[in-house]
């Protein structure tokens, strides 16, 4: 498995941990060790990238005639408090 954008954060982190363990055990040929390291680094940057995403959405689930839909939730009202 190689690092790619479709991986979830958990999958990537889990894989990264597995790679670290494998490298720490030292039980792999050198070529594979280097491949693992490269994969680990790209997994690490994938994880970091996912953490840095800031575009968040706050939406509200509503029922329409066509069924369920979402619309932006006016969070501005939240800031005012009650």
């Amino acid at each position, binding site marked *: 498995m190689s690092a790619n954008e479709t991986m979830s954060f958990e999958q990537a982190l889990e894989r990264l941990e597995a790679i*670290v363990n494998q490298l720490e055990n030292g039980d792999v040929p050198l070529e594979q060790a280097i491949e693992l390291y490269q994969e*680990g680094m790209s997994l690490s940057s994938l994880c970091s990238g996912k953490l840095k995403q800031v575009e*968040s959405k706050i939406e509200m*689930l509503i029922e329409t005639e066509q069924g*369920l839909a979402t619309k932006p*939730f006016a969070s501005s009202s939240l800031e005012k408090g009650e």
Partner: protein
Amino acid sequence: MAMQPHIYTIKDINKYIRMKMDSDAVLSDVWLRGEISNFTHHSSGHMYFTLKDKDSRIKCVMFSSHNARLKFVPREGTKVIARGTVSVFERDGAYQFYANMMQPDGLGSLYLAYEQLKAKLEEEGLFAASRKRTLPLFPVTVGVVTSPTGAAVRDIITTIKRRMPSAHILLAPVQVQGELAAPSIVKAITAMNEHCGCDVLIVGRGGGSLEELWAFNEEAVVRAIASSAIPVISAVGHETDFTLSDFAADVRAATPTAAAELAVPHIQELSGIVFRQQEKLTHALRRYIDGRAERLRRVQHNPIFAQPKRYFLQQAERVDYLQLALRNSLQAKLQQNQRKLSQVESKLARLHPEQRIKLLDNRLQHLQQKLNEQMLSGLKHKKMQTGALIKQLDALSPLKVMARGYSLTYTGDGQLLKKVDQAEIGDTVEVKVSDGSLVCKVEEIKDQA
């Protein structure tokens, strides 16, 4: 003379009033209905509060010995029916109600329903620990089922945004109290599951009275939570009491804020985790390479590479030594075998047939000799016997008789002539005497008869 008024101490008058009140039949057993306010549960265990209705209020005490038996947790705003006595706290000169029994007003049936439903769902295994799922570490979308207005939704959204700015929040607005609350919550949970995309659900509301929280004890809501495909965090703002929704949820949070904290990780913490993993990765590779380099170095420094000649000389010496040892050991083995062989040979010699033959031969000779001796002695004996017999025989011999003058006469054909009729006149007969014979002619036959 004016009457000197009797001046009481305050303590005395308070005591007096207390005596009056304590002896009053009504005040010694009073039932009151009211709402709790200014509630304090003192560290001593006693409860202090005020009971009020729309017109008035009275200070109340419930000592720990009595409140330990309460079937519910009294709190601010709870409507109760209480039974007790009214008396005076002498130090303050204040009368108060000393409650010894208390139950939620109008909630008796709700409590019963709660306990019954809880027992039923528990038996069904709806609350089993084995059903609890772990929450995702890094949810992309958090579903929130609560009222769109109020502190709860605000707390949840601000907490999520603070901890994990990238998280999407999908709010399913519901009523959280009143008749329509339960169906609207059930519908929202179902919609969230159908809409998909949520990694975790927060279902809850802010704090309130038991009645206000009641929707979260309704069977339909509890079952909707239990059967949700998305892991559920319950957040019914209530620190001490558990709603049945809390039991059915995968995780129970005491407050909406706590629920949001459980739902999403703190991004900095995660960054830390990722960073640490990256560091570990680099260290691991470095250690890996160091380890390999060390192994290579060790191999390179092996004497066989450093001083190959010495190594080979050593080996040659070893070969010599081994050859010698081999020879020695062969020789020793040979000697040992020879010793063994000669032992066997001497043993064999002792058993050789020649010996036995000699032995038998000896015995044979001995027997032969014995036989000879026996034979000889037997022969001698026989000889002696024979001698004696010969002498005997000799004595009987006709020759001896003839020597005494007897003779024997034979006919011409050699017959011994015993009767006269054997001869006729003119026959020639031979007369044998001791020293010879006479041939005579018969001239006359004389018959005796």
